[in-house]
């Protein structure tokens, strides 16, 4: 008899993917300005480290929240005992208002429709458990966050069918791509239960256009399926355009109290906007009472620590703080992104025009030997080992076109980013000159490298020393 469950032995957790493999290399040789200046710079981590000082300043001015006190009185005992899966009411209220503020107060969020979860990792999985049976499918536009393979499929038994997006139109979702994905699911005998999008997108850093949002809402209306909008990056929009949430679109189409609105669910988290991934704060927002009810019960498996809820309820209730924070966050992200983009440009590398997120979607197709994923992996290996930058290859995000890479910019200092760009520039320049020198020896090396790459990928796929991140 098989001793362990199939989940243990399957690799549906997705951690054998190259996305996580670069981590291992980074961990072995991490860059440090002083202690290891030649180490690998981590650019595969979508963290927001730009605004901690703002939170630290707030903490200094708000000792009560820090000391588990309210109006000078200790509430430690109440917090220690508080495990109500409805969550701390003040926290949900503050979270709802924060979500509204991010959307320019154009839409409202009812705290009673919020279900807390241990990060959006848990929120997404919980939604799957609520909406899909094993064997049901959700359609996801590619490229998408590699962690979805685990979060949406692993323990739920649900399937993902990709909606192929291409660089020809900036990776936007088209109607034909949507239809194709739907039909593909049917061919595979999968029951499509809904669509899941990340907006703003990871890894693209772009926002869904109104056209795309309308398309999605119309599509789920006609097919009578769900739409999950993971808006975890909603507070990282730094461009001139406003963030348009699916909730905006429902409002504009006057569908707020409609039957369709019950099938639209938003996922949120404080991991990206506030840069607090360690605190494990995720949320599901749904207009469907049954979903809220079921998800609330399921949140028992991953509640938010009461200590954390209390701290954040105080933080987010301070409107002066939230207003300042959101503005400052935008400013700093914009500057940092510009720094990355110009650095890339100086290396002759362009990226998809983006106005959100903590990363850029970088076009390195011209650096590939061939237009293949093998070549992409080869290039990636060089960038990790020779250029000493850990970036994420597009194939790990299920991109259909080789040569794209996600490069993060908000998880390091300006100086480190500068250095990273210098290294890249040097590499590109040396590669260019090498190309001119020897084309034929290059061909010879290619086949050798191919074998080496596949061996290497096989060897490292049994690792589990993988930090979890988005």
């Amino acid at each position, binding site marked *: 008899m098989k001793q*362990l469950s199939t989940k*243990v032995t399957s690799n549906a957790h997705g951690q054998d993917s190259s996305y996580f493999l670069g981590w291992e290399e980074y961990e072995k040789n991490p860059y440090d300005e002083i202690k290891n200046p030649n180490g690998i710079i981590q650019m595969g981590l979508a963290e927001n480290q730009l605004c901690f000082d703002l939170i630290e300043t707030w903490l200094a001015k708000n000792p009560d929240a820090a000391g588990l006190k309210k109006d000078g009185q200790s509430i430690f005992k109440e917090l220690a005992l508080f*495990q109500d899966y409805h969550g701390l009411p003040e926290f949900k209220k503050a979270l709802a208002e924060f979500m509204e503020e991010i959307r320019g107060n154009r839409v409202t969020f009812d705290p009673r429709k919020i279900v807390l979860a241990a990060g959006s990792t848990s929120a997404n999985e919980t939604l799957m458990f609520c909406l899909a049976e094993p064997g049901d499918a959700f359609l996801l536009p590619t490229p998408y966050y590699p962690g979805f393979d685990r979060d949406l499929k692993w323990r739920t038994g649900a399937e993902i069918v990709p909606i192929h997006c291409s660089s020809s139109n900036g990776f936007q979702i088209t109607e034909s791509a949507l239809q194709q994905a739907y039909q593909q699911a049917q061919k595979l005998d999968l029951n499509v239960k809904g669509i899941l999008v990340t907006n703003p997108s990871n890894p693209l850093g772009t926002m869904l256009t109104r056209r795309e949002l309308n398309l999605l809402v119309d599509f789920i209306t006609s097919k009578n399926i769900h739409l999950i909008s993971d808006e975890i990056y909603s507070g990282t929009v730094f461009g001139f355009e406003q963030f348009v949430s699916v909730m905006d679109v429902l409002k504009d189409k006057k569908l707020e109290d409609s039957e369709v609105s019950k099938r639209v669910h938003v996922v949120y988290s404080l991991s990206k906007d506030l840069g607090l991934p*360690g*605190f494990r704060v995720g949320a599901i927002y749904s207009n469907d009472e049954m979903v809220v009810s079921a998800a609330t019960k399921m949140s028992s498996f991953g509640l938010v620590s009461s200590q954390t809820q209390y701290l954040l309820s105080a933080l987010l209730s301070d409107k002066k703080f939230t207003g300042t924070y959101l503005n400052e966050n935008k400013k700093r992200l914009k500057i940092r992104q510009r720094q990355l983009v110009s650095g890339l440009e100086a290396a002759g590398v362009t990226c998809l025009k983006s106005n959100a997120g903590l990363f850029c979607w970088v076009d390195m197709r011209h650096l590939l030997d061939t237009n293949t994923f093998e070549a992409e992996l080869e290039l990636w290996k060089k960038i990790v080992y020779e250029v000493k930058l850990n970036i994420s290859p597009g194939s790990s995000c299920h991109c259909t076109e080789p040569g794209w890479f996600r490069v993060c910019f908000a998880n390091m200092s300006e100086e480190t980013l500068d250095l990273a760009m210098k290294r890249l520039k040097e590499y590109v320049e040396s590669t260019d000159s090498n190309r001119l020198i020897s084309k034929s020896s290059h061909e010879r090396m290619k086949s050798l490298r191919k074998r080496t790459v596949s061996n290497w990928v096989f060897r490292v796929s049994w690792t589990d020393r993988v930090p979890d991140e988005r």
Partner: protein
Amino acid sequence: MGSLIKSGGVSGAILSRIATNDQHGENSEYFDGWKAYDKDPFHLSRNPHGIIQMGLAENQLCLDLIKDWIKENPKASVCTPEGVYQFSDIANFQDYHGLKEFRQAIANFMGKARGGRVTFDPERIVMSGGATGANETIMFCLADPGDVFLVPSPYYAAFDRDLRWRTGVEIVPVHCSSSNNFKLTVEAVEWAYKKAVQSNKNVKGLLFTNPSNPLGTILDKDTLKNLVRFVTRNNIHLVVDEIYAATVFAGENFASVAEVVKDLDSSEVNVDLIHIVYSLSKDMGLPGFRVGIVYSYNDSVVSCARKMSSFGLVSSQTQFMLASMLSDDSFVDNFLMESSKRLGIRHGVFTLGLKKADINCLISTAGLFVWMDLRHLLRVRNSFESEIELWHIIIDKVKLNVSPGSSFQCTEPGWFRVCFANMDDDTLHVALRRIQDFVSKNSNKTAEKASDNDQLIQNNNAKKQKWKQSNLRLSFRRLYEDGLSSPGIMSPHSPLLRT
């Protein structure tokens, strides 16, 4: 609810079976007691005739020690001026291995809670969303949908949800009876195992809570050894939920399965089959902080559970604080000693008070509750209807929320789990007085009617009082399961929970 349209055609936007079935167990009638409590919660001064909550297995006896430690150690918080220099690193830390210091501190605490008789390897400590998350995770690792786990009854009611709901695993109870003080025997397990196998069930393992919830008893080491030998012989798993390990207040030492693993020869125990679930919710009284632990001797399970811990990591803010607290040896040693002492005293006062009312409890040496024998008060002996009737009387007339044995799948009517560690001394005495009054009333039928009327009048007066809660309105929100299907309302909680 509804049929599932499965075809190549339109799927329908119906929800999953999991979302719409009753397998979460919260729609049972057992939440009546909670509803009643929520409507009329006891307060020593403001609502002295309200219902006293004795259905909640919380440990409130030593929170003052923890509070004091936190006050004296501001560096342990990343939010205080002394600790804020760590804020960004900790806030950023989401590695599912957990903070090394946290794992070491937990391993240290677990060892001390077991009297130092065994040590735990920090590399095997895996986080989860409370023991609730830990139990579900271990099921996901060990079993597939349709597989079976044997669970001795009476058992913690929420196992029905935690082990089965989203995993699809089945529970087959191993019924224990009062004839031998509900002791779990190898024979009983063997019998249940054979029977299950004969009915073509795929039994993956045995799971039980030790010390027991709801019994408060600990399993003797010999039986534990024999159970380990049994699972090894039959190549099935053993999961021991040791969430109440440090609530032992009397009698012989608690023998953790970790000790047995250490003691037995490798030919007698296949360690790949042994797993422990732990949490700080009971031993330390910190259910709000959501600290669950999966500890397995099986490397593949550790690896898998660790990946799954992504779905319920412990907040790094909490990890950081506890890392500091639980590596403070003098604090831990004192805490464990004090906790044991206070629980022992509380248990003693309560059981003595019950004896005065001619009420006996199963002899127990651990836990935050007693397993009360009210079989003699059943209107009809051996009847579950009578048990439920009696239960409603206890809620409505005696004004205590207790948990009926049937909610724990007990096969003998008349047993009730009554918690004693979630209130102060005064409240406990009020509860005892009420019980004593009720019992003496019962034996004097004529007096009963008159005092019932008095009680009714008192109740009405009490209800007219305005209930002013603390600003934070937390005391009544500690209840965390609600049996109502309408969401968003702060509803009462069912007794089917990690209490």
